[in-house]
């Protein structure tokens, strides 16, 4: 009855995380259905409930529980459930609290950390205004956006062609190339920093956004290419081969078959390269020198790190304005992120 359904659902959900919501919803329905039959004992999976309620009488050993045992299990279940909800609620509060705190701090009059209260007496938008008047917040925002978009496009192109070559062709030196990329990917960027700095200095790219974009894109290649290569490998070779027999050219196979089939992983690579420049602080600080080239990460860090918390409310306002779009973007594209990560990892 219920049990075969559960198997179907689980296998459907196994296809990918985007099936998760569907899988979850049906799982919930099962819970409800079982809840009627049995007073919702905390168990891990529907199968257990099905077995306990004796819905499968043909299986030996699954007899209905005696009434007193059932009651005892109920009380225990209720206590366990109570603690589980307490734990969930506590964690939820600790997840949300810093966010609420920073939002209210940005709306509280007074600029220092000391004057923050969880529930302020009066709300104000003055800190947001100050951010644009006293600081070049708009400029930082545009700088970061520009760098992020360029980095995303640039690294996406590089990653795709590299991954395509490594996945679809067999040529001499391929394995060596793969292992090299793998080793380089693990390399901490610090060791290369001085030399990268000198190189950019020689190429006249120091203190320019282009220089920073090149450095980001270069850094994104090894890891991203390995991930995408793994995904390309997962596409059955018979598909492009069939197209080849039908007379499709290499470029056509690439554009019409490989690209559309890899959208999840490409979205993941694009998104992570778009978000990286919003977060990065070290490289940006190394490459960008003048105030007019600053990115958000540098600007915000300087507000709280260098002056002792006197610009805290302004920082809070800036943090809200950075975090809101990024968080929304992330939540909307979350399934790509999770999907891309788990897929890429399992196929690495």
């Amino acid at each position, binding site marked *: 009855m219920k*049990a075969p359904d559960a198997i179907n659902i*689980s296998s459907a959900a196994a296809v990918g*995380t985007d099936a*998760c919501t569907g*899988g*979850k919803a049906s*799982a919930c329905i099962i819970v409800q259905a079982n809840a009627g039959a049995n007073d*919702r004992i*905390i*168990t*891990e*999976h529907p*199968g*257990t409930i*099905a*077995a306990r309620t004796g819905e499968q009488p043909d299986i030996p050993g699954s007899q209905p529980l005696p009434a007193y045992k059932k009651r005892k299990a109920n009380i225990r279940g209720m206590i366990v459930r109570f603690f589980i*909800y307490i734990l*969930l609620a506590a*964690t*939820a509060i600790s*997840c949300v609290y*810093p966010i609420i705190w*920073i939002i209210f701090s940005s709306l509280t009059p007074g600029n*220092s*950390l000391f004057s*923050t209260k969880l529930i302020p007496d009066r709300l104000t938008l003055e800190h947001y205004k100050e951010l644009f008047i006293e600081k070049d917040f708009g400029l930082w925002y545009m700088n970061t956006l520009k760098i992020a978009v360029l980095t995303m496009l640039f690294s996406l192109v590089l990653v795709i*062609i*590299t991954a395509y070559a*490594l996945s679809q*062709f067999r040529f001499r030196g391929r394995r060596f190339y793969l292992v090299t990329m*793998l080793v380089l990917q*693990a*390399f*901490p960027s*610090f*060791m290369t920093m*001085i030399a990268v700095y*000198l*190189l950019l200095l020689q190429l006249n790219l120091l203190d320019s956004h282009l220089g920073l974009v*090149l*450095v980001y894109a*270069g850094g994104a290649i090894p890891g991203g*290419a390995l991930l995408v290569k793994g995904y390309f*490998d997962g596409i059955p070779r018979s598909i492009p081969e069939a197209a080849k027999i039908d007379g499709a050219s290499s470029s056509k196979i690439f554009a019409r078959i490989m690209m559309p089939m890899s959208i999840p992983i490409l979205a993941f690579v694009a998104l992570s390269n778009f*978000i990286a420049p*919003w977060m990065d*602080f*070290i490289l940006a600080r190394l490459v960008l020198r003048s105030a007019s080239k600053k990115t958000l*990460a540098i600007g*915000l860090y300087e507000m709280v790190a260098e002056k002792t*918390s006197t610009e805290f409310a302004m920082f809070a306002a800036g*943090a809200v304005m*950075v975090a809101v779009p*990024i*968080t929304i973007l*992330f*939540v909307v594209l*979350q399934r790509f992120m999770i999907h891309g990560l*788990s897929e890429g990892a399992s196929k*690495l």
Partner: protein
Amino acid sequence: MLSVLFMGAGQLYNGQIVKGIIFMLAEVFYIIHLIPYTVKSVRGLITLGDTPQKMVGGRIIQGDHSIFLMVFGIISIMVFFIFAAIYIINVKDAVNVGRRRDKGYDAAAFMDSVRNLSEKGFPYLLLTPATVFILFLTVVPLIFGVMIAFTNYSSPNHLPPRSLVDWVGFRNFINLFKISSLGKTFTGVAVWTLAWAVLATLTTFLAGLIFAVIINSNGVRLKKFWRSIFILPWAMPGFISILIMRNMFNAQFGPINKYLGAIGIPPVPWLADPMWARATCLLVNLWLGFPYYMAMMSGVLTGIPQDLYEAASIEGAGAVQKFRHITLPMVLFATAPLVINGFAYNFNNFTLIYMLTNGNPTNNEYFYAGHTDILLSWLYKLTLEQSQYHMAAVVSIIVFVFIASISTINYLNTKSFREEDMVQ
């Protein structure tokens, strides 16, 4: 053959005129433009410059800049290797065509060679841009970094352009263990880094597992609600959350100590006391990191076939047994590579340490490092704040060898890499 003497000669002899001329031009270009440069820069690489900057009558006379000499030395050696590769291709090509001609075939016309090249060389062509990037942004800097470890490039006495840098052999490596303040810092920081990486990975992994199991278990309502709330710390830009935390844990003005004060608990020195600061780092990392594992494991949990659990219940297994013998092994199997990657990530998690504590509280016994400094943040301080490039290079070589071997083993162990050539 002729091509050994001068590039392109063999092709001309074989009657491939255009190809021959292209090869010849390449060689002429290299000889005229690049040979003097190569010789000069290789010499620079060996000596690292011999004329220091001088002051003559109040004016500065530029001497040699050792570090520039070094970078250009590396680049010109690479260019030399690229040229050597072209040279070998040229000889091979001439030999091949010559053999074909001996067998009575015609030498291919130029357009044919181009077509042939574009077919066989297509993957190489695709890899060229990435290779150029990797060469100049990673490989050259990397070789440079390794070389720095064998010099005395550091402040205050060996900082170009004021003074020259010299090769010192293995002295830096020996010093790292012989000089007591350095050795103490290195072992102290390395032990904390390892402990940090293990604990940070373990705590986030366990918390992720617990919440994934709870949310996916049947008794829990509002699954979607909990999941979306718990994902928030992951969705927030990392550096912003860390900076927020830094203020929340502020011992004097932070809200956490204010609340503790309100219920009568004396203020906790979250970021000022060495042990507390380390615990705070782990706590903040837990907050930041568990949603990632939770999301990952939810995917794994929904993929476990339900009939396994049913079979287990029929055999009389309880919830704990089922968890231990079904859920845990399945999850561990599926997430092991991610966990190892997570370990490597935490090992190098500079951002968290730098933004949260900046390595503080300071440790007076350490060489430019604090109690919470991990190897990477120590490296950052050594290079960008203290200009101790030589020691930083030594430490980063050690870090690199460690991390690279972990991730290589991890990757080579994945099924797809081992079976790769069988599948195709």
